[in-house]
């Protein structure tokens, strides 16, 4: 009997758990450890953030689903990893602390044969003074945050209905943020909601981000064929912004957020400020801060984790300039190289470097997006790592069998630009590969025949259908494996 322990129950963790259970032998045990009792379809949080969906629409309780599937669920947060076991036992284990009301604070050691780290990120609001829902800005990173954002947005809308003008500022709250796509969706949905409330003319909407140009999205942007030209996503995105009357500030690192004013530094080194009545700013991400210890109880965190607390896997972490980057720097199997029975998937793995070109202001402030690794790629990593582990259990080998490199993986993405059955729109995008490969595709880094983008109602229909399809799949309902990640 083998024991597979999965830390985290997000898109990557839940997918890894479901496939681990499905591909493993009956006698094997699959354990999921997550501090949250609910699964959250995070891509739909932007609709909670504008009041078009409720938290119940984007979540479900994990315990009954895992009970149905034969997966052990422990509502707890992982505190430390002990890959060599302890003085009396060589078997690796994790120390967890329960977060549910009945066992809150209880500490337990959970041993494993294979460990999948899928904890997702720590929302690092502390990196910017005044950032976060507890301070002066809102967020849509969790469904709880999205509810708070919507409550504040509705207050702004009521003020506009009374004739008051409102300044709305949406984007990224630090020079090293990722997930610009989520903020992009949010500003477009806010604009849509304002129109539907008849107050669009009362609002000044401004985008602020760490992207070098609009349309970078942390992937260095992408080129698409459109109207007889191959154009960069900057052109496409600027057009969408201008069409909707949205202003934008790019190349910016937010330094501080006050109650109604934000201070930022740009790549030119200028320090500026912008006033707002309502702001939603995404935080930068870091790893959740797990510690690691060897058999002698000596800390070995730096062996397992990069300085940003994300877990090191089979990537090339040597320091290189942008010109030296290779798509092969990115991990293939997501296996830790010190401990072959530990894997990290989704946001939890440490990327070898960014995708967008690193930039610094004259004062030395880094201002560029860190790489996104959410959604579809996360799910694929979870599935393939689960298949590798179940193969390794059967063969006794320490070599993973299934690869899921982002440099040989395509991605499809739908970015909502307004939700309505007949007047909604969304930007539909595909790209191949996710990590640009300038050796194989010297001009644009990606295969132009598989990289496309367009906006329209069809995209909204797909996004809306995918919401229900992925909720269905995540619950392990019949034929869930037929639905791609």
């Amino acid at each position, binding site marked *: 009997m083998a024991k597979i322990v999965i830390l985290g129950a997000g898109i990557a963790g839940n997918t890894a758990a479901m496939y681990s259970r499905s591909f493993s032998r009956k006698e094997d045990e699959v354990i999921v450890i997550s501090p949250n009792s609910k699964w959250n379809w995070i891509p739909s949080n932007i609709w909670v953030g504008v009041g078009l969906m409720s938290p119940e629409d984007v979540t479900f309780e994990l315990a009954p689903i895992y009970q149905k599937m034969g997966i052990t669920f422990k509502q707890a947060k992982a505190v430390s990893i002990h890959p060599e076991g302890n003085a009396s036992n060589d078997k690796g284990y994790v120390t967890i602390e329960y977060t549910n009301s009945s066992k809150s604070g209880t500490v337990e050691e959970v041993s494993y044969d294979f460990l999948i780290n899928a904890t997702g990120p720590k929302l690092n609001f502390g990196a910017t003074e005044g950032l976060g829902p507890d301070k002066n800005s809102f967020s849509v990173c969790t469904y709880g945050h999205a509810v708070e954002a919507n409550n504040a947005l509705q207050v702004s809308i009521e003020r506009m209905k009374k004739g008051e003008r409102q300044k709305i500022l949406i984007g990224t709250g630090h020079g090293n943020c990722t997930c610009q796509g989520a903020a992009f969706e949010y500003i477009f949905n806010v604009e849509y909601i304002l129109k539907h409330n008849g107050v669009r003319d009362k609002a000044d909407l401004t985008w602020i981000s760490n992207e070098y140009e609009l349309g970078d999205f942390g992937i260095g942007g992408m080129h698409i064929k459109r109207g007889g030209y191959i154009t960069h996503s900057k*052109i496409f995105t*600027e*057009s969408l*912004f*201008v*069409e909707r009357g949205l*202003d*934008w500030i790019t190349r910016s690192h937010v330094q501080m957020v006050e109650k109604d004013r934000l201070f930022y530094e740009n790549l030119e080194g200028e320090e500026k400020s912008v006033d707002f009545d309502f702001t939603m700013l995404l935080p930068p991400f870091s790893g959740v801060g797990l510690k690691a210890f060897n058999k002698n109880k000596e800390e070995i965190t730096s062996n397992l984790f990069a300085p940003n607390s994300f877990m090191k896997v089979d990537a090339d972490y040597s320091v290189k300039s942008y010109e030296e980057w290779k798509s092969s720097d990115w991990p293939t199997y997501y296996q830790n190289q010190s401990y072959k029975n530990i894997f990290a998937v989704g946001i939890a793995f440490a990327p070898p470097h960014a995708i967008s070109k690193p930039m610094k202001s004259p004062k030395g402030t880094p201002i560029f997006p860190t790489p996104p690794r959410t959604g579809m790629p996360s799910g*694929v990593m979870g599935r*393939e790592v689960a298949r590798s582990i179940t193969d390794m259990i059967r063969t006794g080998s320490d070599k993973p069998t299934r690869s*899921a490199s982002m440099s*040989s*993986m*395509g*991605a*499809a993405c739908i970015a909502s630009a307004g939700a309505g059955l*007949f*007047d909604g*729109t969304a930007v*539909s995008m*595909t790209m*191949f*590969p996710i990590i640009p490969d300038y050796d194989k595709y010297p001009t644009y880094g990606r295969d132009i025949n*598989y990289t*496309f983008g*367009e*906006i*329209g*109602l*069809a*995209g909204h*229909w*797909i996004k809306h259908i995918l919401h229900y399809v992925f909720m269905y799949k995540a619950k392990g309902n019949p034929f869930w494996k037929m639905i*791609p*990640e």
Partner: protein
Amino acid sequence: MKVIKTYEKDFYAPMPTEFTTKMRTNIFWQFYRFLVINYKMIRMTRFH
């Protein structure tokens, strides 16, 4: 007073024509695009 937007950043962005904008929510055209986009996305899944 006239608002002249020349030399501002949004003056340089391409703007969709009225026809393009209408086609984005035209049910029949969008149903066709729905099929095309689904095909393109499903095709992408073969890369993993």
